[in-house]
Structures are given as structure tokens and as C-alpha cells.
């Protein structure tokens, strides 16, 4: 799922509109393919190497936020080797023995030094000393076999999911709620520990999804579950959702921000500050409505 810094959206009155990309754009498809190549050919390579290789394409991307978002999605689907658990204690023993050897006054060859460390620490110095660092974890596989287009679709979906993280409830409206679809919806609602209130009229079905404690204003408990549930909705043929979301952390406009000009306060010429303070939207603290009625294709 995308982190806050990778979210792209625009605000229009009380509505929030996710920044979708065109999944057919040749430039974006080529970029997705390049990133996929790095990961698909990266089995056995360290996390650090993959990061360095991907960086090449990320730097070439004019929209860096989009590039990082796509990279994050691939990283979320990548599996790495697990770090060795007792590497820390083994390292401590070797380093302590090495430190005592380095304090000796007589010259040693490197081979003699390493042999002395081995004898003193009872550890094999030829085994990696730092195998437990995340940077040295090796890629074992990518959990899904994405095509470039699927990866771009996944990015669009992740943009919605990132917004849904701050919601407490979601209203789904659909015209086609067959028994099979209903069964799948119920199964997933149960899996994600969500509650649903279903209303059916002649031409549509409305499902209000939330959690058992969603009445409590402060709870953020269900955002992750609802966001995780969202791909299930995308499998429907026709759907429409509406949710109240909080775009970013609310900006608390303190008195000093509201009533004072920057130059008066600081006595220093801070042209950027004036611009910045003028831009701070106090209304950000209000929740916005996310309405989606388009179909975000998933595979």
C-alpha cells in the first residue's frame, strides 16, 4: 500500500479525486516494464543492488512520486531471505577478539590475524560478518507475475487504498449483486472483520461497510481493513463507492499562524515563509468525500 508521501490526489470543494494514471500510456508502460525487469532478473541479488538498479529508472522518471509509488508496490510484492537471527552475538564475539588482536604491538600478516581471531572467538571469520542487515537480504521471488499494464492498474488501485486508510466507513452501490458476488463479498467482509448493512431496491444494492466500533469518532481501526477489502469491490462489473476520508494529517493552525505576518515575527526577511503561510489550508482538517464510480480494472 502506498504511504502518505506517495499519494497523489486533488481537492475539489468537498471532494477528493485520486490522481489516476493512464494505464495505456506508452511511456508509463515502458517504465513499468523496466522496473519489472529489474525485479524479475533480480532473484539472488541484494536489496541494496535492486534499489541501485531501480534508481536508474526512477531518476529518469519525470514524475518521481509515481516512480517511487510503482517501486513501492513491487517491493511490497517481493520476498527476501530472512536475516540470520544469531548474527549479532557471533559478530560481537569476532569483533571483540579482533579488537584485542589489533591492540597487540607486533606486526601480523592478515592471514595470521584472522587465524588468531578465529582461535580466540571460536567463530569462523570466513562466514559473513554482517548477514543480518536489511540491505544484504536477497530477493527470492516476486509473489505475483505482473504485466506492465497490470502493474499500472495496481498503482491506480493503490492510490484509492491509500486514501481509504483514513476512512471509517464506505458505501458501495451496485446494480449487479448476484448470489455469487454476494457470497464473495460476505466471505471477504468476514475475513477482514468488517460489518455490512445491505439495502436492496428494485434496481440497485447498497452496502454500507464499517466496523463494530465505527460509531466512536476517533477510531482509525477500520481504515486498513476497508482498504484491504477494496480490491474485492473492483472485481464487480459495475460499482460505485462513497467514503469520507481525511487526506493528510490535519493542519492545526495555531494562533501564531493565523494572526501574524512572518516578517513581523522574525524580523528577518523570509519571503518563502510568507508564501508558505499563505498556502496553508486550514480546511485540510475537514474530511473529504471520495466518490468513485469508474471501474478500476484489476486482473
Amino acid at each position, binding site marked *: 500500500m502506498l504511504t502518505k508521501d506517495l499519494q497523489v490526489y486533488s481537492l475539489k470543494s468537498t471532494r477528493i479525486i485520486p490522481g489516476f494514471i493512464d494505464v495505456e500510456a506508452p511511456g508509463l508502460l515502458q517504465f513499468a516494464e523496466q522496473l519489472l525487469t529489474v525485479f524479475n532478473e533480480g532473484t539472488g541479488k541484494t536489496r541494496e543492488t535492486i534499489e541501485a538498479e531501480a534508481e*536508474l529508472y526512477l531518476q529518469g522518471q519525470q514524475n518521481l512520486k509515481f516512480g517511487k509509488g510503482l517501486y513501492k508496490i513491487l517491493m511490497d510484492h517481493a520476498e527476501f531471505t530472512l536475516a540470520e537471527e544469531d548474527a*549479532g552475538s557471533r559478530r560481537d564475539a569476532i569483533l*571483540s577478539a579482533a*579488537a584485542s588482536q589489533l591492540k597487540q604491538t607486533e606486526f601480523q600478516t592478515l592471514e595470521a*590475524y*584472522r587465524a588468531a581471531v578465529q582461535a580466540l572467538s571460536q567463530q569462523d571469520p570466513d562466514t559473513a560478518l554482517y548477514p543480518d542487515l536489511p540491505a544484504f537480504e536477497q530477493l527470492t521471488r516476486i509473489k505475483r507475475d505482473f504485466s506492465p499494464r497490470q502493474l499500472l492498474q495496481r498503482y491506480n488501485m493503490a492510490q484509492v487504498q491509500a486514501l481509504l486508510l483514513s476512512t471509517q466507513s464506505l458505501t458501495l452501490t451496485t446494480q449487479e449483486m448476484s448470489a455469487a458476488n454476494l457470497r464473495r463479498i460476505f466471505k471477504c467482509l468476514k475475513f477482514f472483520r468488517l460489518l455490512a448493512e445491505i439495502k436492496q431496491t428494485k434496481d440497485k444494492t447498497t452496502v454500507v461497510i464499517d466496523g463494530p466500533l465505527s460509531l466512536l469518532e476517533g477510531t482509525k481501526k477500520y481504515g486498513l481493513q476497508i482498504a484491504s477489502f477494496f480490491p474485492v469491490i473492483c472485481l464487480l462489473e459495475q460499482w460505485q463507492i462513497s467514503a469520507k476520508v481525511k487526506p493528510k494529517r490535519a*493542519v492545526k493552525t*495555531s494562533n*501564531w499562524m493565523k494572526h501574524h505576518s512572518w516578517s513581523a515575527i522574525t524580523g528577518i526577511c*523570509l519571503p518563502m515563509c510568507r508564501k508558505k503561510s499563505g498556502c496553508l489550508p486550514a480546511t485540510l482538517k475537514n474530511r473529504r468525500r471520495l466518490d468513485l464510480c469508474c471501474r478500476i480494472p484489476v486482473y
Partner: protein
Amino acid sequence: MRDCALEDQVFSTPPLQVPEQLSITLRDYQQEAVDSWQANQCQGLIILPTGVGKSIVAIEAIRRCGEAALIVLPTIDLMIQWATQLEKHFQQPIGVYGGGSKELHPITVITYDSAVLMMEYIGDRFPLIIFDECHHLPGPVNRQAAELSPAPYRLGLTATPERNDNGEHLLYSLIGHEVYRREINDFDDGVLALYDTEVIEVPMTAEEQTEYQLNRQQYLDFVRSHRISFSSPYGWSNFLRACAQAPDGRQVLQAFRTQKEIAAASAAKFDKLWELLNQHRGERIIIFTALNKLAYDIGERFLLPVITHNTKAAERKRFLDRFRQGEFTVLVTSKVLNEGIDVPEASVGIIVSGSGSVREHVQRLGRILRPSADKRARLYELISAGSSEMNISERRRQHLAYDNQTQDNPEQEN
């Protein structure tokens, strides 16, 4: 412009409880620096070389200002170091904000990252803001820490205000103009340790030389054919963009990396490094590299503790403590210990690889210049002969620090 009444509703902080005198005597230049800052309405930059006690200047500035102070620092290690020092001088709890801690007190230390995120919420509690290593401030994100702070009293401390992007001019508008400056060669009275610097050229093997030339040529051909100029501030981004777009871009970038790696980690460098470690047995040595990979290669080969940004906080603290106590005599690092870390006992620095940045180099030199009894510091630079490292080394030594070293080089005498 007409004078108008100003009602300041920003700060309602009570005056800070400060001692009448500090427990240590300020040196003349420290006194002068704080005087100049105070005379400039408690605003401005103080530029002093590393290791001469900039933090004492800041502590005196806080004492004289007598207002709640927020000290902004680039790393968590520095934050802890400052908190300990501030607590000792002010005898009151010091707030620490960052690295998992969220304590706020009238004197608080905070990282640049946390300051950017939190300034809008906590800025009105601190009429005095101090930016340590303030050359970090002009960055597009970090500058928000200064922009969002309403503090009327501002102090910037650095040894190296100059930036490759000329961002130092922004410092003057964010903090105030330069109120005091002294260079490293203004100090000759034992304030800094005596030091020598030595550049050691080591030859590459024939095999390394061939591979180096091959890869470098591929990289240079690409740069020339795409007319990329690295003298432009966007040179590197342009290169990466060109690599991303060209069909052979990946190979070119790989060639660029390979030639760098060959020069940075030639076999002769490892041999020379081992020789130096033997030569300085018992002395406290810091080995610097440009890349994490090389730092870990050295750590694995010579069985040494390595600190990089990947090192977990607890292990980093353990390594540093053991190094300070003398249990470890050698520490390998990439860039994270370049700045601010105070290990007065460290007397030997070995730069196995580095960038052409004067700032980075001077900061690295500063790690071994902290005065200590009978200390003579020594900074070695290992460079691969016939490689681009020679030019890089020339570039990074364009600083006054290299005019002030002691002249008696023992190796030359022998």
C-alpha cells in the same frame, strides 16, 4: 514605512532558568562569537572549524538569550550527544524529539527531519532556534524547519557553510547574516590537535587497470555523445535521465559504477590499509569510505566494526561506546560519522574513498582534530594512481585546512 504597534501573541513561554555563569571558561574566540551574535539582535551565523567548541558557543548563546531554545541537529547521534552536554551545563531535563522520543522541555534537541514535520505544532514554544551544522538547512525540505518557525532569535553553526548548489545565500535569509567567522588556520594555540595529512597513491594491478579503462571509456563516450556537462548543477540528474532513456543506458551506468568500484577498492588499497592499521596499532582509527559496500568489504576482510545508515541504533551506540572507551580501536564508516560526532581520542583518519566535496573532506578531518593530551592527528587519503580519484582528491583538498598542517612528515624524513 510607518511604524505601527505590534502585539505579539505568538510566545507565552516563561523565561528559561539559566545559570549566571557556565561551569567552564569560554575561550576568547567563543566569547567574541557570542558577543557578535548578541550584538546582532541574537540572529546570525557563526562559522568555526570543527573541533573548536561550537556547542559551547551555542550553550552560552542560550544562557545569554534566556529564552526557551530548540536545537536542530542532523543526526540522532548528535542529538544524544548534545542532550548530554546541555543537561550537564543547565542542570535541567532536556527534551529529545526524534529517534523514537517525543519529549519537549524548555530546551529541546530535535532532528532536522522531525523539525520539518513538527515545527507548525511546536514552533511557538521556542523563541530561540539553533541550527547546528546549518549547511543542511538550505535543502528544499529542511529549509521548511526555519520557514515554519516563528523564532525571532536564530543561530546557525557550521564549519562549512559553502554548498555545491550555492545554497549558502539562503542561510542568510533563514537565519541572519554571518556574524563571526574564523578559519582553521587562525588557531595555533592548542585549540585543535596538531595534524598532518598525507595522500598515498597506490597502483592498480594490470588487470584492474585494463578493466578500469574499458569501463571508464564506455562511460566517457556516453557522456560526450550526449553532451552532458557535470559542471551544471543538474549534470548528474541529466546523466541518469539519459541513461534511463538510452537503449544501452543500463550498461553505461553499470560501467560507471564498475570503474568507480575498481578505483575505490583496488587490491593495493587493501594492502596499504592493512599496513596502516599495523603502523598505528593501539591508536584510535576511523576509516571512511564513499560507499556502504566498500565499508562492509573492509569490515569483513579486516574483521572490524562498521557503522552505516543500515546499522541498527542499539548496535551503533554499542560500537561508538566501545570505540570511545578504547575497547575497539578501529571503526569503519561510510558517511554517517562524517559530521559532529565527538570522539576526542580518535587520532588517525583513513579515507579509502570519498567524493570531491570539500565540505565532506573538512568534516572528516574534523573527526580527528578534537584536542586531547599530546595528540598528533593524521589523515591519510588512499587514492588509486591513474584513476579519476586523483582529480577528486585535488578538488576536495581546496580548503585552508590543507595550508595549516605541520610540516614535519615522518615518512618524508625517512
